[in-house]
């Protein structure tokens, strides 16, 4: 089983990543991908900046991916997460999971997202109308972990 974790400021090519993910693994009948996009709910967002903790970020993501691997039967796991300045509509991150059957790939992808949101050291700051503000963590993000 292969875990591929990338933390980068550069954009990534979602199409190319999805295309090459688990390519050639005909034993894996199910691939799930999730993509997080910079949301601009009311058209007021000027942009976002994501800060992270170099070193810890990679370790935390590896650990989350390894835990997913231990719980589900996965053939491949990919996590890409960007940091730095991003504009509305840009892709922030993606996860991909591959398994023999879909249930494992779906559940593992949700698990990865739930843990990634509140256990990987990233912080979002939004710029809107000339003002900057740190995005607050939601209680729901912490509650989401309890189902696992």
């Amino acid at each position, binding site marked *: 089983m292969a875990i591929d974790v990338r933390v980068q400021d550069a954009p990534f090519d979602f199409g190319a990543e999805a295309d090459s993910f688990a390519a050639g693994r005909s034993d894996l009948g199910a691939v799930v991908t999730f993509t*997080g996009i910079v949301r601009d709910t009311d058209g007021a967002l000027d942009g976002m900046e*994501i*800060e*992270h*903790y170099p*070193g*810890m970020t990679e*370790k*935390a993501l590896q650990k989350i991916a390894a835990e997913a691997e231990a719980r589900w039967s996965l053939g491949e796991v990919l996590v890409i*997460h960007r940091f730095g300045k991003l504009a509305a509509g840009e892709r*922030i*991150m993606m996860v991909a999971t591959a398994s023999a059957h879909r249930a494992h790939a779906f559940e593992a992808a949700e698990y990865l*997202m739930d843990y*990634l*949101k*509140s*256990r*990987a*050291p*990233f*912080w*979002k*700051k939004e710029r809107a109308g000339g003002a900057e503000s*740190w*995005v*607050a*963590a939601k209680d729901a*993000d*912490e509650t989401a972990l309890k189902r696992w």
Partner: protein
Amino acid sequence: MIDVLYFAWVRERIGLPKERIETSATTVADLVAELREREERYEAAFADLSALRVALDQELSDFDAPLADVREVAFFPPMTGG
């Protein structure tokens, strides 16, 4: 000597991303108490510990954790990735 790192609004309130501190604190809570007495900007950053998280040597930890053999402490708000 211990490296202390600050992220997000903790970094902004304290005004620096990282510093090396000479301390005799034996737990994270002791270190926080020591920092709070230093200057107003530390007091402002550490006023509400329930709004903060701590990592010891790049692993999430707790405020009552011991500092023995720890080289790097990081303080930051709850994470907002994804």
